């Protein structure tokens, strides 16, 4: 199952894109029960594509909360358009998911 959930909604001629990503977002400063530092593990880059053209590029670090949530407002956006969201984290893992605007 993909780690990315995407929801789209029409709002007065605009399209709201909401996304929820499952990710630990460790910033490398937290300690576990044995008082050992948990190594940093966070998303570095996230991008959103609308019909294969990149509309948002976002750089982030461990200061974004665990299981990050974002929403964006797209001007236009028709029923049947494709929205895809992808991320890369600092360990090189990557994931992407796409949805069709209803």
């Amino acid at each position, binding site marked *: 199952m993909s780690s990315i959930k995407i929801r789209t909604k029409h709002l007065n001629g605009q399209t709201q894109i909401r996304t929820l990503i499952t990710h630990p977002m460790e910033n490398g400063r937290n300690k576990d029960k044995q008082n050992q530092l948990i190594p940093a593990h966070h998303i570095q880059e996230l*991008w959103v594509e609308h019909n294969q053209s990149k509309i948002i590029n976002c750089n982030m670090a461990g200061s*974004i909360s665990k299981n990050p949530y974002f929403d964006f407002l797209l001007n236009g956006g028709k029923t049947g358009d494709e929205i895809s969201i992808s991320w890369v984290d600092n360990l090189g893992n990557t994931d992407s998911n796409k949805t069709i605007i209803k």
Partner: protein
Amino acid sequence: MFSSRRKFIKTLLSVTAYGLTASSGLFYSACAQAQWLAESFKAVSYDELLPQLFPDVEFIDSKKIKFRRLPRTAENGAIVPIKIISSIKNVDKISILVEKNPHPLIAEFFLSPVLDPIISARMKMAESSNVIAIVEAEGKFYRHHKYVKVIVGGCGG
């Protein structure tokens, strides 16, 4: 027969093309951004970081940027919601910073013109501090800030 063969070749071509672009895109972004990311998101104080991120920039304090959802008092610093609404046109980039976090830069959003400059996210805050949004539009830098009191810090360490 003919049509199915044609269809098959078309599909084959499109699949390879898609794979190529996807892999090259990933490769490019991973290589080009890695170094730069580490520089921007490192743990230095806000006063040191700001001139590095925005060298020789005059900030315009603007009321066209508004915060929504950002509480005056956050009970849990691990999840502080923020929504930035800007009525400035042609926004290229929105940066969020928290003054007293160990890593002051939270995130940077590069927006294309088809998007409205309205963004929401959830961030961590180590202690009570100013939250600053910097909006870059047509070569000008607009800034807005709000003080948020944090009861339980959420950065650990």
